[in-house]
């Protein structure tokens, strides 16, 4: 990120913003970054929920409820929560929190909105891509349509949904970028 303070030199818009990639198949880095953000968000919410349960039990019963990562029920609850999180957002508009942040969206093979059934299938098939030593994600790197295993199973693809052209217009509209200061002739006056 570029800091904008005081005198601003000549800026070039980000290369990717020169061309709108909206609708093209999203690449590995964008999808991985979106997933990482989702992981942080859903884990944060899960920990917050556990803390709330602990606090409530302490207030009502007077006992602390200790959750540790080895507890099977905690793992199951976390898995169920992750399934609900992903299935809900993919079925809602194809975007999770991470997807919205990085501008990627899940759509069907022909570009339509994902149905609830497809969202559930994708959320169920998602762990498979991990369970086979991550080989399920190789399709994002090697495939012509950048589809992972769970995409193939659910009949979905992931596309860029952010409009780089609008971003560029925003970029141009910033006065320090759009109108670089005129050279002053080394301080001499005409």
């Amino acid at each position, binding site marked *: 990120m570029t800091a904008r303070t005081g005198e601003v030199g000549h800026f070039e818009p*980000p290369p990717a913003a020169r061309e709108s990639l909206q609708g093209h198949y999203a690449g590995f*880095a964008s999808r991985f970054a979106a997933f990482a953000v989702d992981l942080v968000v859903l884990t944060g919410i899960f920990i917050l929920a556990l803390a709330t349960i602990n606090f409530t039990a302490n207030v009502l019963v007077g006992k602390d409820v200790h959750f540790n990562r080895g507890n099977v029920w905690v793992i199951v609850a976390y898995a169920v929560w992750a399934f609900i999180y992903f299935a809900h957002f993919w079925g809602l508009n194809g975007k999770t929190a991470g997807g919205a*942040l990085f501008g990627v*969206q899940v759509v069907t093979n022909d570009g339509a909105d994902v149905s609830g059934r497809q969202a559930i299938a994708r959320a169920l098939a998602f762990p498979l891509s991990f369970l086979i030593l991550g080989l399920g994600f190789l399709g994002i790197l090697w495939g012509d349509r950048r589809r992972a295993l769970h995409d193939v199973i659910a009949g979905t693809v992931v596309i860029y949904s952010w409009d780089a052209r609008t*971003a560029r217009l925003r970029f141009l509209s910033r006065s320090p970028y759009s109108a670089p200061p005129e050279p002053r002739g080394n301080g001499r006056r005409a």
Partner: protein
Amino acid sequence: MKQGRLKRTAKGHTLCVDPLAPLRTKRGRLASSAEAMAQAIAERVIGQVVGALDLNALLAEIDLNAVLETIDINQVLRQVDLNSLMDRIDIDAILNRADVNGLLDRVDVNRLLATVDINRLLSSVDIAALIGRVDVNQIVRQIDANEVIDKVDLNAVIGRVDINAIVQRVDVDALVEQTDLGSVIAKSSSGVASDVLDAVRSRTVGVDEFIARFVALLRRRPYIGPPGPPAGLRVGAAS
């Protein structure tokens, strides 16, 4: 003797018609009195005949179009200094007096135009000076604009305009830079947050492209950019 009397008689008769007849000469000698008498008679007869003619009726009998066809108008126009001719004409006064519609009804314009070399004609006319002398406001006042517009098929005119080509010629970036549109867009967004988001997305897409190029290198295939979009996708609706 008889011949001398005839001369005197003729001389006396001619003197009644043309007192100057004796003074006319032919090749350095006096003209014969009979010849002089015939000439004097012819002059008077022609004058009376012409006076008795109805020229309007005669002109009505003439096919003007046929006459015009026999004239080389281009040749005539070449010999005329149109600019000086135009300078001598009070065009406004003519336009005020002329019933242009009636005049045009009587002229076979197509036939007339077919005989005129328009390019040569226009090249010899100082159009700027001509237009400068025309009171355009007065002409415009005489035109019923509504009637003219009614005759125009606007759909056909618009149908001939390639709007896409016009839009393609618009430099949107320059437009944004030179107008307040950019500031409107900037105000409609959340400012710094949007900048950060655009930058993060842009960098991530850059990494996507880098990885894709690297993989293409490993596969020994040329990389021609990100694939897609899927068929049937409405790109505008994807955002």
